[in-house]
């Protein structure tokens, strides 16, 4: 059976004198490399220049707030259970009276940490989340000089009230995936 017509019959024929000299082949090879000298480089100078990223790219996580600015997360721990890399840890706490504007439900995550070196960006945490609290964003995690800096706490994960992160595309993508 032949799948493509690209197959070639290998021959063991003796090389001719011109082939044995290798010089024509060397000149041909040098012409090929010289033609590359005038080609546009394929390099993307990363920090200055960025490759376009899909709007539903799975990058750095964000912990969402609701419309009133209260945190969605109830520290149920389903994301930590779903995480195949065991990158997520959290400590739950009870909401005190008067903190209703901070946390949506009676329980919240006092500590919520993701180790970005362990995370494999699979997106299972957002699929497991019953409260639509965690989402992956197209933003990339930068590099640091120290391993401890890769452990992201709530300070880096919870979206700022005045700078909401738009996750509608990712939400749509997830609901389509679940159907």
């Amino acid at each position, binding site marked *: 059976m032949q799948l493509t017509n690209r197959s070639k019959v290998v021959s063991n024929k003796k090389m001719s004198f011109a082939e044995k000299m290798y010089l024509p082949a060397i000149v041909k090879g*040098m012409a*090929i*490399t*010289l033609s*590359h*000298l005038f080609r546009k*480089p394929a*390099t993307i*100078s990363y920090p200055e220049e960025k490759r376009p990223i899909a709007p539903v790219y799975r990058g750095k996580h964000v912990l969402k707030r609701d419309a009133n600015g209260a945190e969605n997360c109830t520290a149920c721990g389903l994301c930590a259970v779903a995480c195949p890399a065991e990158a997520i840890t959290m400590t739950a706490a009870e909401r005190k009276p008067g903190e209703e504007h901070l946390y949506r439900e009676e329980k919240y995550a006092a500590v919520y940490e993701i180790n970005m070196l362990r995370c494999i960006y699979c997106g299972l945490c957002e699929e497991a989340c019953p409260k639509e609290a965690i989402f992956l964003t197209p933003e990339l995690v930068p590099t640091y000089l120290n391993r401890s800096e890769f452990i992201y706490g709530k300070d880096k994960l919870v979206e700022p009230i005045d700078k909401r992160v738009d996750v509608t595309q990712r939400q749509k993508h997830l609901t389509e995936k679940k159907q």
Partner: protein
Amino acid sequence: MGLELLIFKAILVLVIFTITLTIAAYSTYGERKIAAFLQDRIGPNRAGPFGLFQPLADGGKMFLKEEIIPANASAFLFVLGPSLAMLTALMTGVVIPWGDTITFQGVEYSLQITDLNIGVLYIFGVVSFGVYGIMIGGWSSNNKFSLLGAIRASAQMISYELAMGLSIVALIMTTGTLSIKEIVDQQATWHWNILYQPLGFLIFMICAFAECNRAPFDLAECETELVGGYHTEYSSMKLGFYLFAEYINMFISSALMASLYFGGYNFPFMNSLGLDQNWVTILGTVVFFGKVFFFIFVFMWIRWTLPRFRYDQLMRLGWQSLIPLAILNILLTGIFTMREELKNWLFN
């Protein structure tokens, strides 16, 4: 020898020393840039505009690295190796004619440090001395990889020196002199030796690649097989000396190829421009460096085109192809120069 001449020669030595080092340093930059362009990349571009300060950064790094002499290495020879490599690399520049004569206040100054009447022989002597730098470095490291690299390098250099010498013999038969200055002067305007000795030039160029341990003959330091070859154990500026010596050798062999086969500082129509002799000399020097840079580019171009030889292929090419070809070249040159005498001897 007048005092002016002494001062002039001292300045010339200093200038050529500086130029050689600068060109060697910027060859590393050129090598990386050309390699990048040939592979559709950009190359070093962080240090300064277009990465032009990269050689300075590399040199600074070399000086600041920790200097290690292995416990089992013989310390004296370990230091002697790179020093010898650097010394022999710098010594060859003495007999290269970098330009014609310049007349200054009625006195003629030659832009060649010294015009030895055995210039070609001198270069060969120094180049064969250069193998000691590599051999001593590899031996004194007390490391199997280094020793293997050094043995490969010395065997390769000795093998290819033969073919190189034989290819030069044919050239000397046509020019009748060993002085490089005279050889260059004989190639006035466009009578370049490449037109009379194309086969000789090809052999010479291949051997020059082998002598410089450049790809495709870089078996002495092949990273994929021998870690780093003879300089595996070297660090800091001692390693820098080895790498630097390689680039200086490349520059000097380019200069040698340009002056022996491509007319040196001669260029077509140099005498019909109607310019002052000093201007022609300066222009000739510029042209000479243009030729040298072209050959340096060819060195790099070849490196990023051809894969490395296998050791048996290397030896077969040297002993079974290049040496017979060089002898054939000598024979043909001899027949050509003696054609009148041969005709008389055969038909009388």
